[in-house]
């Protein structure tokens, strides 16, 4: 496939880069060129090697073979600092903030403006941060410590950090995965401005529509190998998917109609002071209920309180008629509840443990004989689910932290689906998952619902909610602001409720 590229020298390029991690060959002879003033997308399934490629560009990984070219000249970045000094700003897939430091310090670490005698000018650090946030339309206090920020807010801080470099090359690894529409729009606005000012942009997202919105060219990877680099003009989403997956995909949101049964999860007047107030809803067997809202509306907090990892101050939760004790996840599990948490790195997985052990963590009841672990049972339970969810791994004993982001997410799902829950709460279940697998996850959730499982799905991906949910609950500022039937739920109605522009109340 030959497509015309700009005549100019690329600002930053990779030529024939390979990178292996022990047995895994993450990149095999990949080339990529980034031009000034152009936004370049990088597409591929989970584990295709996108993040690895970015880390090679940013000097985190040294390529085994191949070269990195800066303005046409081969360079060797010995670390992230070298790349940064060369004008390359990177937003990594997983936010990497300093939890103890203020947001402002996080952004300017190592580059703080200085006063006489080399002293850090704290005031101007703060001011510059406030300006950046204003540009992004973010409502964060520059002095707030990064600890306790939601994933979305962390992602926003990362974005602000990358923007603050005024870099020639801006690389973004799934920056939008945790964001809702409005933040994405703000981000794209800013990125477009940068691009117009001559910056080169590399953008990764599993939301294909975002790629089409923002980018001019796309490079596709499959299994670490380069597949194509081409302009997006004239390409359809299906074309792109075919390049990534190597085959055609079925319908994206395959919601089957199911018969709803008895109430399986019942939440009454649930309150946690300062976080959410008076939240009541039911989820029935066979039903998928979507929980929508803006970032920080308190959806995840509700889910966590229901499951028992957080305590709540008032209200009650019933699962299949059993009233749950606050703050006791093990009892909730026994009652048939499962929670796929939103932050896979901190909450979903023990990153230093193997895939097998991670999936095994929820299954002690099934895998012990007379109080002792039954290795075989544990293994077969894990294999079963790893295979059903198409986790891409070399050995089941591999440490989960070495998997690609999307595959880690699949392991979290496997870990919880393996408990055969009656009520399943999924918090951003497809964050960072590629289109192919996303469809698979959706099919799976549908199938579970059809089997009579009650599903509560929290998602910031509005189309996903609209496509999957039988009913949509919307939260705003810690309260339920609307309950919409599948027919009533449209992008407009949900957004209106999420931003508090309606006073619809909860119509049951």
């Amino acid at each position: 496939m030959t497509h015309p590229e700009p005549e100019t020298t690329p600002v930053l390029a990779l030529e024939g880069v390979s990178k292996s991690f022990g047995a895994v060959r993450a990149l095999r002879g990949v080339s990529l060129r980034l031009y000034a003033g152009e936004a370049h997308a990088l597409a591929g399934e989970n584990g295709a090697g996108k993040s690895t490629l970015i880390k090679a560009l940013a000097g985190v990984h040294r390529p085994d073979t191949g070269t990195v070219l800066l303005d046409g000249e081969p360079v060797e970045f010995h670390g992230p600092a070298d790349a940064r000094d060369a004008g390359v700003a990177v937003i990594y897939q997983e936010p990497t903030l300093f939890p103890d430091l203020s947001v402002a310090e996080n952004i300017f670490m190592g580059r703080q403006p200085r006063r006489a005698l080399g002293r850090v000018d704290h005031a101007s650090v703060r001011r510059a941060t406030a300006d950046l946030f204003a540009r992004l339309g973010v409502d964060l206090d520059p002095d707030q410590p990064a600890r306790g920020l939601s994933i979305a807010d962390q992602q926003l801080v990362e974005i602000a950090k990358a923007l603050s470099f005024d870099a020639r090359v801006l690389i973004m690894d799934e920056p939008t995965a945790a964001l809702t529409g409005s933040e994405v729009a703000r981000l794209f606005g800013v990125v477009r401005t940068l691009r117009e000012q001559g910056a080169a942009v590399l953008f990764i997202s599993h939301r294909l529509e975002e790629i089409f919105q923002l980018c001019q060219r796309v490079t596709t990877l499959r299994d670490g190998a380069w597949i194509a680099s081409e302009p997006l003009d004239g390409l359809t989403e299906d074309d792109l998917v075919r390049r990534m997956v190597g085959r055609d995909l079925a319908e994206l949101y395959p919601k089957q109609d199911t018969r709803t049964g008895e109430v399986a999860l019942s939440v009454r007047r649930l309150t946690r002071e300062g976080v959410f107030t008076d939240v009541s809803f039911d989820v029935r067997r066979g039903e998928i209920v979507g929980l929508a809202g803006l970032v920080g509306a308190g959806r995840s907090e509700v889910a966590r309180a229901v499951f028992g990892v957080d305590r709540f101050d008032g209200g009650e939760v019933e699962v299949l008629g059993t009233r749950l004790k606050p703050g006791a996840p093990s009892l909730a599990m026994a009652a048939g509840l499962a929670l796929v948490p939103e932050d896979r790195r901190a909450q979903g997985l023990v990153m230093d443990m193997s895939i097998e052990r991670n999936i095994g963590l929820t299954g002690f009841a099934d895998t012990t004989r007379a109080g002792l672990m039954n290795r075989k049972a544990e293994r077969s339970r894990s294999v079963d689910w790893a295979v059903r969810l198409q986790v891409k791994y070399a050995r089941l004993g591999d440490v989960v932290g070495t998997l690609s982001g999307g595959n880690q997410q699949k392991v979290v799902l496997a870990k919880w689906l393996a408990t055969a829950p009656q009520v399943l709460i999924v918090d951003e279940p497809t964050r960072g998952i590629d289109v192919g697998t996303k469809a698979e996850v959706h099919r799976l959730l549908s199938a579970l619902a059809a089997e009579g499982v009650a599903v509560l799905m929290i998602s910031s991906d509005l189309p996903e909610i609209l496509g999957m949910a039988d009913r949509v609950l919307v939260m705003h500022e810690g309260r339920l602001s609307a309950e919409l039937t599948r027919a009533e739920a449209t992008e407009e109605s949900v957004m209106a409720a999420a931003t508090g522009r309606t006073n619809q109340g909860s119509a049951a």
Partner: protein
Amino acid sequence: MPELTKNSAVPELTKHSALARFGGAVRWDSAVGALLLVLLICSFSFVDNFGNALNLSFLIGNTLPIALIALPMTMLVISGEVDLSVGSTAGLSGAVMGALWNAGMAIETIIPICLLLGVVCGLVNGLLVTRLGLPSLAVTIGTMAAYRGIAQIVLGSDSVTDFPTQYLDFGAGRIGDTFIPYALFPFLVLLAIAVVVLHATPTGRSLFAIGASEEAARFSGIRVKRLKLSMFVTTGVLSALTGVFWALHYASARYDNATGLELSVIAAVLLGGIDFDGGKGTLGGAIAGVFLLGTLQNAMSLQNVSAQSQIVVTGVLLVISVLGPRIGRQVAQARARRRTAAAPPPQAAPST
């Protein structure tokens, strides 16, 4: 469901990884075990008087207190916590034992009371850590002083030595003329229990998970606080038991018994490859570490190596214990990198 989309390159790769595994990842705990073996062989062959039964029984008897506490300490450290108050708990238990004995109580009653005291000590540590969320290092530095102080108040300057002979014999004696101290048997039983619990039960799995990521463990429905609390209590009980054993073994109950024991235990456990950040290590490694240090000290003393030089050797061993595996890994990685670089470059250069 479509078939498992494993990497197409898997078969070719597993061969590689088996190799890499063999070369790169000789586990540290096995290395310590091997080292212990080598040391034992050397000592048997070259150190006069090392191999006779009496000396071996001394060696084992003197190492037992450390080994006993190392059992729960290993688990505690694997779950990401630490207890520095073990030595003081042992001291307190011994002091109470002495005081009650002086008061005329029967030793059969005293020992259970001491163990109960261990429960209380462990509970105090555990509750402060789990309920208040305080760092265990800080808490147990505090209780280390507090328990020792209470021991001092309880027994003052007394030193109680007149425990019944059959108990003293149990504490210090050995079976006939063999090298086996009586006290070895209860220890072996405890060791077996600990190995099973840590490496073959859900509890053990959970401890590893908690140590590696407490939050993820909580989200997996593991009762983190309860488990940690029970680990602290176990540590307390075994420390108290060690205190009783100490008083009998050395035939002396004093408030300053077992001073500094915590550092010996921690050094041994670290040497055995237990990661202080939690989540990694094996009991086998820890026990090998304990006996490696014990044997080394015994052999060096027999060889008339001065106490000062012994300290240096212990320190060097500790440093090597962490640097060694690290350097080994780096060498293995470098070799692997050279191997891949030497392999034929992959095809599929992009067309432009």
